[in-house]
């Protein structure tokens, strides 16, 4: 939805562009406030006995909520933990060892779902060599990797104003994808709205008439498997500053908002002058806008349907809050969900593809659990498995895969961050990456570089004309190759036929005469021809003549984002530049965006950095030598020569000649065989 309509394009090219930005910090309401009721509570407890309920009830608690642990009512000074479940007397939380549980600590469960790792657990079956595998401490394998679920898209977190006593929030689950292409049913719950639920794919505009902080839940169920996936979005509704008392943060300053595909998302810096107790590490922040284009009040852009007013969704990054006592202000950094994923480190995970995970787990002695097998695995299924069972990411944000996926036989994630695990899979197998857009949606995309015929494969979001940019565009022209030779290798995996390895090189058999040699292995492929095409295209992209063009746009072009990848075209006449470059609708794609906002002038505009879209010639096949025989008449193989261990040499230790005895300084005699049994003194 970042491609403007003709009407939107006309607005983009009208003037002036006016923007008012607003800052919302989600203040999660309590679902249950109580105290620990266990005199022997200690580190490592998972089931917390409670009493003294001061707010809410256990019936309001849902899996995945955040619980603050404090020494006073509502405090979080002791720690925080993810809640699994609650009943009338106990709260079950995620596996932990760092919370110093103690009697009478204050517990506050809030309606806030955060991004965290979820730990697996492997224990040895008593008296045997068997291991028992669990996810999230105690979830046994039944059929989770046979019956795969859905990657939910339900829009961004939201903040907005009551206008005329109502705030309409648009909801749609468009983009939700079931991994087995099952028909889906939708179950929406709109907390705080005038309509409480819907079963539609696109419920459309839902009205809120009271200021407050709410949560919307969407459950998506696979028609055949019955697998239910759930996701949550937080909704903050405010009175306008001239009305009511529930206002967003008013005394604040936008410092910067920089997005980069290479970094995987946006970092935003903000300064707040109000004394806000809600500014804590991990808090959810939404920046939203009132926009006018040439006097017409309208917002343009944003990938979430009907959420154009949402400029940015991020979280306060841990440790980024600084207090300036001289100016009485607080400054902090906000990060896209990908930045939070970088802070959360998961356990190593390894899964294999299987045509029958449950069956193979029983029949194959080498398979300890169905948890290590994924049905007919491709990259999207591997990512779903990791994010669904090893993180809470899918609770909190949209996730969408774009591009042509490939089968993979193995997926191994190291002990690394959640972001690194997914991004490395995308980069290593598909030449893609994981990027968060401004509104916090995660896009796992195959890069423009790795897409054959990219100029015709990606949508074109804008033809940048002279009235769209200001100042002087900066064009980097690479006159020397970065790469002289690129070798790519990988595996084409067929679920029944198995794996075939391929190698390819570009530009051909002979390398170019400038640049370095690079070898990349481990790609997931279709066949040799696809690898040759990929190799040639990557070689061309890495050696692009125009790897960076920086342009300052003249206004609020929020239709542009770093994800999903879309093309912009540029036209330049030879008389307009000293190099005589002629571009006539030349396609580029956005690699970075830096937003500038001047509140006094109401003016917001981006600088964008573009990379040329290239198309290479197919690389050449490199024949993979057959494995050398290890035995038989054809030779090969080798015998391990007998190891010769040299004789250990005899070491002779010379004996002591004796001890010279002196008395009052006069030598008496040399004696041997003396044992000293007490201190020796004069």
């Amino acid at each position, binding site marked *: 939805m970042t491609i403007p309509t003709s009407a939107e394009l006309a607005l983009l090219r009208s*003037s*002036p*562009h*006016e923007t008012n930005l607003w800052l919302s910090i989600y203040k999660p309401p309590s679902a249950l406030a109580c105290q620990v009721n266990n005199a022997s509570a200690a580190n490592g407890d998972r089931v917390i006995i409670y009493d003294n309920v001061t707010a809410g009830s256990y019936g309001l608690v849902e899996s995945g909520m955040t619980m603050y642990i404090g020494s006073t009512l509502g405090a979080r000074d002791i720690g925080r933990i993810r809640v699994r479940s609650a009943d009338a007397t106990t709260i079950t939380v995620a596996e932990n060892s760092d919370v110093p549980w103690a009697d009478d600590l204050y517990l506050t469960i809030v309606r806030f779902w955060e991004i965290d790792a979820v730990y697996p657990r492997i224990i040895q079956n008593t008296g045997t060599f068997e291991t028992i595998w669990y996810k999230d401490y105690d979830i046994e394998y039944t059929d989770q990797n046979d019956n795969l679920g859905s990657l939910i898209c339900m829009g961004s977190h939201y903040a907005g104003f009551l206008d005329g006593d109502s705030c309409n929030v648009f909801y749609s689950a468009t983009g939700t994808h079931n991994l087995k292409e099952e028909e889906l049913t939708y179950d929406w719950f709109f907390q705080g709205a005038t309509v409480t639920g819907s079963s539609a794919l696109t419920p459309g505009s839902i009205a809120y008439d009271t200021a407050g902080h709410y949560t919307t839940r969407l459950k998506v169920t696979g028609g055949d498997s019955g697998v239910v996936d759930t996701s949550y979005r937080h909704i903050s509704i405010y009175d306008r*500053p*001239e009305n009511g008392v529930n*206002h967003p943060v*008013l*005394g604040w300053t936008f410092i910067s908002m920089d997005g980069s595909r290479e970094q995987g998302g946006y970092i935003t810096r903000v300064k707040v*002058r109000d004394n806000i107790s809600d500014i804590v590490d991990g808090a959810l922040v939404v920046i939203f806008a009132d926009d*006018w284009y040439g006097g017409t009040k309208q917002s343009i852009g944003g990938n979430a349907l009907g959420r154009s007013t949402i400029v940015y969704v991020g979280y306060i990054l841990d440790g980024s809050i600084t207090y300036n006592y001289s100016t009485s202000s607080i400054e902090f950094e906000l990060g896209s969900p990908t930045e939070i994923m970088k802070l959360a480190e998961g356990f190593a995970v390894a899964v294999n593809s299987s045509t029958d995970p449950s069956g193979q787990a029983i029949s194959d002695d080498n398979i300890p659990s169905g948890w290590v097998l994924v049905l007919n695995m491709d990259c999207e299924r591997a990512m779903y498995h990791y994010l669904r069972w090893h993180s809470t990411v899918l609770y909190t944000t949209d996730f969408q895969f774009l591009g042509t996926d490939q089968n993979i036989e193995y997926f191994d994630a190291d002990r690394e961050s959640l972001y690194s695990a997914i991004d490395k899979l995308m980069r290593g197998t598909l030449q893609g990456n994981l990027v968060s857009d401004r509104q916090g949606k995660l896009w796992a995309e195959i890069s423009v570089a790795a897409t054959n015929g990219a100029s015709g494969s990606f949508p074109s979001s804008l033809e940048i*004309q*002279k*009235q*769209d*940019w*200001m*100042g002087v565009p900066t064009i980097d022209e690479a006159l020397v190759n970065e790469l002289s030779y690129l070798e790519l290798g990988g595996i084409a995996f067929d679920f029944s036929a198995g794996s075939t390895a391929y190698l390819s090189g570009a530009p051909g058999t002979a390398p170019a005469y400038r640049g370095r040699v690079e070898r990349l292995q481990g790609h997931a492929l279709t066949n040799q021809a696809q690898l040759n095409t990929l190799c040639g295209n990557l070689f061309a992209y890495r050696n692009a003549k125009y790897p960076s063009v920086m342009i*300052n746009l*003249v*206004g609020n072009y929020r239709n542009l984002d770093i994800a999903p990848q879309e093309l912009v075209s540029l036209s330049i006449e030879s008389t307009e530049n000293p190099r005589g470059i002629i571009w006539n609708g030349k396609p580029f794609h956005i690699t970075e965006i830096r937003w500038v906002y*001047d509140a*006094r*002038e*109401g*003016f917001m*505009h981006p600088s964008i950095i573009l990379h040329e879209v290239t198309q290479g010639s197919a690389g050449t096949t490199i024949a993979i030598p057959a494995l050398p025989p290890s035995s038989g008449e054809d030779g090969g193989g080798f015998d391990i020569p007998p190891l010769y261990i040299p004789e250990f040499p005899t070491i002779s230790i010379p004996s002591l000649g004796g001890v010279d005895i002196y008395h009052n300084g006069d030598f008496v005699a040399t004696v041997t065989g003396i044992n000293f049994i007490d201190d020796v003194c004069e």
Partner: protein
Amino acid sequence: MTYKINGTELVIQPTKGRWVDRQSVDIDGWGHPIYPPYREFELSWQLGTMEQAEQLRTYFSAVGSTGTVVVDLPKYATNAYTFFAYTGCVLQEPSYGAFFAEHQADMLLLVTRIKT
């Protein structure tokens, strides 16, 4: 036709008032200047009473950090000298010159974020 803030007439009307020239942000690819959407209006008093100085300070204190005001100003770009109530304006902190004969000299109030 008087200067007002939030509907209240100023104790003493300013000696001078002027629309501040907008500075262009930059020029576009065709060479046209790009202007921000808002204008600014400057009210100045050569000499004012302490009561008037206090009135300006009060307006700013009330809305200086977060709120907006409605300001009655000479309408921008019309063929007649008429006043118009501009809403959603922001006041910068008033500036004051030296005291003179128990009066406040050289007072200046800048109204920003005026949408014309």
